[in-house]
């Protein structure tokens, strides 16, 4: 049992540190480790956990908790979640504290202005990559475009847009 927990801790610590640019980038490595290297589950099990992590609200990276749960129950889930988020959160916290000390420094304003196109460009990049990742067909891009336009031009509640998206997905497919 302790062996599994240690393996979970090391796996998710490593994956979280590799996840520059977000959690999605390490999903294939996570699957490989959980299925092939450790044998905690089958590929089908992993895809089910992936689907559950998308079904629940919150960040998709919570698939880490599910892999931990599958490997070693609730303790495994706790270890995996802490390893996935703990060290990187401490890092960001430390960086944010240093950053906060220079709130009014001229160079900080310069860095913020300089990084704005980078961070906003990354938002569009991941949206494009996610759209290309879904299977072909016009329904999903049409829903994305309609949601983007509605949420840009109006103050409609996002939850309503998400619900309509789910309804459209259901209607277009059946």
């Amino acid at each position, binding site marked *: 049992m302790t062996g599994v927990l240690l393996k979970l801790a090391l796996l998710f610590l490593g994956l979280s540190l590799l996840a520059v640019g977000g959690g999605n980038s390490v999903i294939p490595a996570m699957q490989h480790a959980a299925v092939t290297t450790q044998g905690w589950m089958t590929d089908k099990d992993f895809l089910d956990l992936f689907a559950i992590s998308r079904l*629940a*609200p919150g960040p998709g990276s919570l698939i880490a908790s599910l892999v931990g749960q599958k490997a070693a129950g609730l303790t495994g889930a706790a270890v995996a979640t802490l390893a996935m988020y703990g060290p990187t959160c401490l890092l960001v916290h430390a960086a944010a504290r240093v*950053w906060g000390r220079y709130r009014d420094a001229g160079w900080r304003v310069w860095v913020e202005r300089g990084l704005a196109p980078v961070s906003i*460009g990354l938002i569009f990049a991941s949206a494009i990559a996610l759209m290309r990742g879904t299977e072909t067909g016009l329904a999903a891009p049409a*829903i994305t475009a309609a949601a983007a336009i509605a949420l840009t031009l109006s103050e409609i509640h996002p939850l309503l847009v998400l619900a309509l*998206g789910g309804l459209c*997905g259901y209607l277009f497919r059946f």
Partner: protein
Amino acid sequence: MPAPAPKPSLRAIAWVFLAIGMQSFGGGMSAWIRREVVHRRAWMGEREFVGGLALAQIAPGANGVNLAVFVGTTLRGPAGALAALIGMLLVPVIAVLAMGALFTEIRDIPGVEPVMTGIGAAAIGMNVANGVRMMRKNITGLWPYCLLAAIAAAIGLAGLPLVAVLIAAIPLGLWGARP
């Protein structure tokens, strides 16, 4: 030095992030956080938020979780970071673990797959809308727009590795914004 803006209480931070955690189906965490923290409550300015978003993206780890920690830290230090982090993850963690225990073959339930595809597609649209809104508030001049488009195309269309794009793009961004 400008007068500091009134800081929200820890309870208010936890409550807002709890609401974000409960509503953010399909992902789109940074869009939810910006909507609640910048757009609706003005706890943070546009430029400070985008700087934090860049930190959350460039630092290792999940972007939305990193961003919650940045916002919490900036508003209320370590306690604020914990309030934001625990607030945002509490309901989703319980939800995934309950579903993980209850369903073994969730993809086989009729209707789940297309509904999730629809919600996921709408959540991507939410991210796009958030990108457009941030662009309007933060980006001025031709150079930053070109850089932004080049980054989106290099990663989203050409599939270039993120780290390589960042190494090229960050100096170009700083150069474009030089005083």
